[in-house]
């Protein structure tokens, strides 16, 4: 570097610092339900992140919409990196950072460090790094890379999960641990990977381990002490599942005593999965939380006759007591590993001539399912990935899927070309909803599979799988599709095809009519929220499997942040220790993903973009 360049750079830094100091600090906590330009007939029930980003989705409704509009369709071409940070951990970076009170908090994959960055001096050293040192053996029972999907902020604390089954609360100012509570047990194949949310002083945490015979549960911890307040199991007797007098499911198929036992053979429910490793929503008006449960275990359906409740089920529960209000089993007797742990997007919207309280659920089963979130009635179910062939649709009267018998799986038989693959029409990566466009932006996959069920043996702490799976690109050869779904008209408004790899990042929509997402080979993109035209893109060094967020910096300017760090289930082949000549490796994803290792390498990077 020559001296002239050095001088210019130093001057540039000085100007940047100067410009920060000259701007007024953004309001510490700002949220809104009133978005300029909201489409007719749309009403939000939960405040949106308007400057800060304090919970995994930004808001309780899981819209992942920010009204910030400084960066818009006209100026987005000028977006460029302004801050970068290495976490030092070259594993899959799922989730996204929090931004609270001028500080960015980054929760990393195992070893689950929490990094606090002062946004007044973002290129300086971190304010602090909290290192919780989870048990190393937890790495060996995590099904799909040693990931973490994010943290929540509440009442001066950052709360997040450690891979080894502990939830921690950390003082947001000092980085000191406030409490640590064991929620899951690695000896039984359980880990914690999901992002907790905090509702009225309760931290809601669910376990992972559906591939290892774990029994799913959602636990509410007291925010101040970490002590367990209630626990709702996904399988077992009604007393365990917290099904009581208030339980009023819409459909007959969900009614009857102790279905969490009776829909299994003998004691299979004790190792039956239904883990809760995705996203939780909260409706503050109805005081209900919503979340879905994962696959039944093992994957081999012949070994577990019955509906296997309450796996692959959407639950509505009282936020205070955890008592179930309604349930809807999206995948009765799942045979394809379609975990239904996706984001429940809650919005009031005009539907059939009147405004209804909707829950929009883009499923791993590749159907966009719209529910009345007060009653659990299924209002519509439409394919959002065209190649979907496991079912033709759902019967709205019974709530049951119309399953294609040719795609049912059985022990010893290789069933070919099931679409979608176990990784779904979308994976856990969350969609976004814009109240301005009325569109849900779904990170879609066009990936299919050959599936052979095998006899599974339960051995505690090891995979309880029972399947040999080989995935492959779906018809047309492309694997990624950003689907803009028109909720009201129940149709695809437009899409963006990502030719090489599944879309494995979350999506962010903004008041500037932009939609942000990343690709598995590292491109970070902004598209027009109304037409899908790609307006800007930037190549980060590693694949993007994280969720973009946006915030207002201490200088009053809008920024967009993303992690670049490939991994996760579909990105496993890009990590060391996975061989691309075994198409059945990484639970079958290598078959579809073997080209990925040529396109990207592991990293752990935070990028912040600004104008």
């Amino acid at each position, binding site marked *: 570097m020559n001296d002239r360049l050095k001088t210019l750079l130093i001057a540039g830094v000085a100007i940047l610092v100067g410009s920060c100091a000259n701007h007024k600090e953004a309001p510490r906590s700002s949220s809104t339900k009133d978005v300029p330009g909201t489409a007719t007939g749309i009403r939000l029930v939960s405040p949106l992140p308007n400057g800060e980003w304090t919970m995994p989705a930004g808001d309780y409704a899981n819209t992942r919409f920010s009204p910030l509009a400084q960066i818009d369709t006209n100026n987005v071409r000028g977006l460029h990196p302004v801050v970068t940070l290495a976490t030092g951990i070259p594993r899959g970076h799922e989730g996204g950072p929090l931004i609270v009170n001028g500080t960015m908090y980054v929760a990393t994959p195992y070893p689950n460090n929490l990094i606090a960055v002062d946004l007044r001096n973002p290129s300086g050293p971190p304010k602090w790094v909290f290192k919780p040192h989870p048990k190393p053996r937890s790495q*060996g029972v995590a099904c799909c890379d040693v990931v973490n999907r994010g943290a929540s902020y509440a009442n001066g604390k950052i709360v997040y999960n450690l891979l080894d089954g502990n939830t921690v609360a950390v003082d947001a100012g000092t980085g000191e641990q406030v409490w640590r509570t064991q929620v899951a047990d690695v000896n039984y194949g359980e880990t914690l990977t999901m992002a907790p949310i905090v509702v009225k002083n309760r931290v809601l945490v669910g376990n992972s381990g559906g*591939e290892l015979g774990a029994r799913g549960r959602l636990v509410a911890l007291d925010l101040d002490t970490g002590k367990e307040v209630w626990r709702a199991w996904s399988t077992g007797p009604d007393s365990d599942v917290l099904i009581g007098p208030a339980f009023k499911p819409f459909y007959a198929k969900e009614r009857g005593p102790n279905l969490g036992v009776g829909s299994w053979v003998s004691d299979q429910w004790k190792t039956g999965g239904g883990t809760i490793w995705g996203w939780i929503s909260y409706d503050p008006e109805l005081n209900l939380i919503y979340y879905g449960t994962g696959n039944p275990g093992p994957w081999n359906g012949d070994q577990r006759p019955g509906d296997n409740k309450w796996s692959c089920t959407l639950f509505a529960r009282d936020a205070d007591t955890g008592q179930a209000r309604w349930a809807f089993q999206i995948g009765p007797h799942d045979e394809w590993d379609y975990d239904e742990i996706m984001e429940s997007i809650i919005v009031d919207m005009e539907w059939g001539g009147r405004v209804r309280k909707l829950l929009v659920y883009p499923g791993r089963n590749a159907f966009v399912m719209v529910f009345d979130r007060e009653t659990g009635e299924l209002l519509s179910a439409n394919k959002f990935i065209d190649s979907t062939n496991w079912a033709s649709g759902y019967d709205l009267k019974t709530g049951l899927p119309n399953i294609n018998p040719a795609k049912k799986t059985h022990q010893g038989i290789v069933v070919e070309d099931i679409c979608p693959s176990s990784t779904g029409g979308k994976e856990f990566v969350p969609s976004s909803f814009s109240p301005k466009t009325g569109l849900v932006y779904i990170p879609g996959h066009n990936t299919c599979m050959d599936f052979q069920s095998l006899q*599974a043996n339960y051995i505690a702490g090891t*995979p309880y799988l029972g399947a*040999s799976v080989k995935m492959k690109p779906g018809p047309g050869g492309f694997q990624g599709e950003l689907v803009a779904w028109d909720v009201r008209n129940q149709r695809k408004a437009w899409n963006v095809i990502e030719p090489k790899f599944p879309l494995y990042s979350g999506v962010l929509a903004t008041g500037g009519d932009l939609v942000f997402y990343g690709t598995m080979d590292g491109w970070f993109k902004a598209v027009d929220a109304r037409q899908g035209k790609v307006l800007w893109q930037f190549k980060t060094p590693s694949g993007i499997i994280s969720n973009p967020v946006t915030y207002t910096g201490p200088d009053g300017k809008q920024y967009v942040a993303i992690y670049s760090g490939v991994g996760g289930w579909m990105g496993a082949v890009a990590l060391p220790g*996975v061989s691309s000549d*075994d198409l059945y*490796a*990484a639970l079958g994803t290598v078959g579809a993903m073997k080209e990925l290792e040529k396109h990207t390498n592991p990293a752990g990077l935070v990028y912040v973009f600004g104008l």
Partner: protein
Amino acid sequence: MVAAVSVGCNRGTTDLAVTGGAPAIDAVAIGPIPGPVEQETELSNPYSDDRVALAEGRKLFVSYNCYGCHGGRGGGGMGPSLRDEVWLYGDSASHIFDSISRGRGRGMPAWGKKIPQQQIWILAAYLKSLRTPLEPEPPQP
């Protein structure tokens, strides 16, 4: 250092119980020994060229859930690939036996008290056969 190496040299197999024609392993160190010299008596796996045993090893690899972590044909996933160039804890027959028997710190369970030693040798033979012409049920291209 010298003492440690000489202890390693003195380890033999003559006084160990032999089950089913396979050598026992209790005295083998965990993993490769650091340092320039490792003159430990190498145990040979009686099943390494036995196609019937390799096919049995493939079955055990599935029935003991090994494939769930290490991939359908050993290509890795939750656990490391067993068909790449890298043997994290040594590639000798006894090291592979040892990894299976005693487990490893990042999540590999210790199987020594759960399954018979003979089956561990058969599993080790299957793992060594991966990517060789002897591999049973090799992955399709």
